[in-house]
């Protein structure tokens, strides 16, 4: 007996990925493959100083000695690195001083994505640094922020204009020896954001970056570095879209955050990379190393993410709680549908005294997807009075998907208090019927219930993102409900 609800549940994804279009502009690419020559070529094209090239080469040589890790709960098809282009920049004439200088095709792309580089953006108070295929196109509001001493520019630009800062901090949170993809990124990173908030400054607007992968077979290797000096504050938003492609695209980014005394950094992500089609073909591989170090006393780093895209997601935004009284937070909603796979979570390492960490992870699985939470709470011997609260919930839609939880607790100090809660639930047929009986159709019922489930995390997002995130949740579960 197949009830009507079963029929809806077994329906495949209907909503078309609406960002699946491409831009026809000239792209400056280098030949496929990865070897020392390519690394040098990348550095040369970006006109980097010597120290940057050295950094890349060391990382590349180290990467060659490594093998891709295999411990994740993921099935990853073999990646042929010689079949990937590691650099693609839209050809531009010269430095861009005003919006008129931006390639109109490029502008159209960003308009389609709903990002206006116009001064209108100023009204919403968001400064946007738009990245297109490895190169930052324009940074708005640079001047406004510069007045406060805030540096917000593309990573490439930072390497040129603020090499001392970059040299001081790059690789200090995620060294190239950290893992396979960190080494790869450190060798071939393309571009990303650089953000520096000087002492005592509270950044007055949310800083945001929009990523886009365009040319086929280009991996995108963003590198982002955020430095918050003593008593500063910044809220940073990261949102991504990608076009429809048949070939898988590799995305191995690194984000490093440094928070000094009494500083606070809020990093929010709404991730919408192409997840592959309903048969599991295509889609982005999202292998990311994100880590923040609460170096100063009373410092705080919060990660908030809504992940709905990518064919394979492998990331653990983490916090190292070095400074006394520092706080680390991780709020996440990760959705997998159809054939998507996710192995994601966080690592909270308690080193200083009186440190606190909070983990709230909400996984939602549908279709035949596999969604795993992997988290580590580590309390070192000298970490007096550490506190951790973790809550990992899984919501299963349908009976063909999987939700897995791998929590690790390593506590070496007996004054620590570590709490862990985990629930697994599904949307009950009786809950759906209750909604139906009140006049709410099944798709809306599921949207209501899923939003209610994810509310705790969605509430942590900056207002601008919260609405986009809600819509995204709905789209990603449209039709393929379970």
């Amino acid at each position, binding site marked *: 007996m197949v009830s009507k609800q079963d029929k809806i549940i077994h329906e495949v994804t209907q909503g078309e990925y609406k960002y699946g279009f491409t831009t026809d502009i000239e792209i400056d690419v280098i030949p496929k493959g990865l070897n020392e020559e390519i690394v040098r070529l990348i550095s040369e094209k970006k006109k980097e100083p010597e120290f940057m090239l050295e950094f890349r080469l060391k990382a590349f040589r180290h990467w060659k000695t490594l093998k891709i890790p295999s411990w994740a709960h993921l099935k990853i098809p073999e990646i042929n690195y010689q079949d990937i282009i590691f650099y693609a920049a839209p050809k531009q004439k010269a430095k861009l001083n005003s919006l008129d200088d931006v390639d109109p095709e490029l502008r159209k792309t960003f308009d389609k994505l709903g990002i206006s580089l116009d001064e209108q953006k100023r009204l919403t108070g968001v400064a946007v640094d738009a990245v297109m295929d490895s190169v930052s196109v324009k940074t708005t509001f640079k001047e406004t922020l510069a007045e406060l001493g805030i540096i917000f520019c593309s990573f490439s630009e930072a390497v040129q204009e603020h090499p001392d800062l970059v040299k001081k901090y790059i690789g200090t949170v995620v060294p190239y020896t950290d893992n396979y993809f960190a080494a790869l990124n450190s060798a071939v990173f393309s571009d990303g954001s650089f953000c520096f908030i000087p002492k005592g400054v509270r950044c007055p607007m949310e800083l945001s970056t929009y990523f886009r992968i365009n040319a086929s077979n280009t991996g995108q290797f963003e590198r982002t570095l955020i430095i918050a000096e003593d008593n500063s504050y910044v809220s940073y938003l990261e949102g991504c879209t990608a076009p429809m492609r048949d070939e898988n695209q590799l995305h191995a980014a690194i984000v490093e955050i440094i928070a000094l005394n009494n500083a606070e950094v809020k990093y929010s992500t709404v991730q919408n990379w192409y997840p592959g089609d309903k048969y599991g073909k295509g889609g982005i591989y999202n292998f990311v190393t994100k880590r923040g170090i609460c170096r100063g006393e009373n410092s705080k780093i919060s990660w908030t993410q809504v992940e709905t895209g990518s064919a394979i997601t492998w990331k653990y935004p983490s916090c190292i709680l070095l400074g006394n009284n520092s706080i680390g937070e991780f709020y996440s909603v990760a959705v997998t549908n159809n054939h998507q796979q996710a192995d994601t979570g966080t690592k909270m390492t308690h080193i200083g005294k009186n440190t606190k960490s909070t983990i709230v992870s909400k996984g939602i699985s549908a279709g035949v997807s596999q969604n795993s939470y992997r988290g580590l709470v580590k309390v070192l011997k000298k970490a007096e009075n550490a506190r951790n609260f973790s809550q990992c919930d899984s919501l299963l839609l349908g009976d063909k998907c999987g939700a897995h939880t791998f929590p690790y607790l390593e506590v070496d100090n007996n004054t620590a208090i570590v709490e862990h809660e985990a629930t697994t639930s599904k949307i*009950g047929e009786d*809950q759906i019927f*209750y909604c139906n009986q009140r006049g709410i159709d099944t798709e809306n019922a599921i949207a209501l219930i899923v939003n209610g489930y994810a509310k705790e995390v969605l509430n942590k997002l900056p207002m601008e993102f919260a609405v986009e995130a809600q819509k995204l949740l709905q789209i990603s579960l449209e039709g393929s409900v379970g």
Partner: protein
Amino acid sequence: MLKVVDLKASIDGVEILKGVNIEIKAGEVHAIMGPNGSGKSTFASILAGRDIYDEIKGKVIYNGHDLLDLSPEDRAREGIFLGFQYPVEIPGVSMVNFLKTALNQKREYLGLEPLSASDFLKVMREKKELIHIESQLTNRSVNEGFSGGEKKKNEIFQMALLEPKLSILDETDSGLDIDALRVVANGVNKLKSKENATIVITHYQRLLEYIVPDYVHVMFNGRIVKSSGKELALELEEKGYDWIKNNVYGIG
């Protein structure tokens, strides 16, 4: 308003309803009583459109519609309301959000403009006052952490808000103390009108002292076996269901 002809239904191969016949007109209150397992809740659930039954045979005409052809949400939008015997919890979904979505989907179905958030809150306030329901109930997630009595009151509150044409109250009185019973009954009575109708399913005559029925039916073994006026409820109370059994089957 509602005409049920020879309604039969089975679940997992077992026939539960064996030919139910009943007719309900606007402005009427019908009580359905009967022993456990007689099919009262099944009947309510089938009218509401629950999809777990193998085969449903017979005819159900509701205001000119073939009711069995409509989806549960369309039945609701056409004005059918089921007060659940065991209302389910929906954590994380606020009552306000839930009811606003329900009301606006109904309005869309009827070709009306949706209510804005502030208009909706106004309506909510009016209905709360109308049936004397406490604010805390409506500030929480749907039925989350509600006591049995609170859940039943919440059903009546939703009924007030959705203004149904045909309300089916499935053992609304079970688990209620006298005060809660009064609140629920008052609410139902306040909402009664010449344009709508109510089916009250209950075991006990007590509720029917507060919600006075025009007709009382007794369901037994998947059929309505006896129908009469409100005195029938008192007779049942005195003589018990065995009396019905004997009457129907001529046993003993």
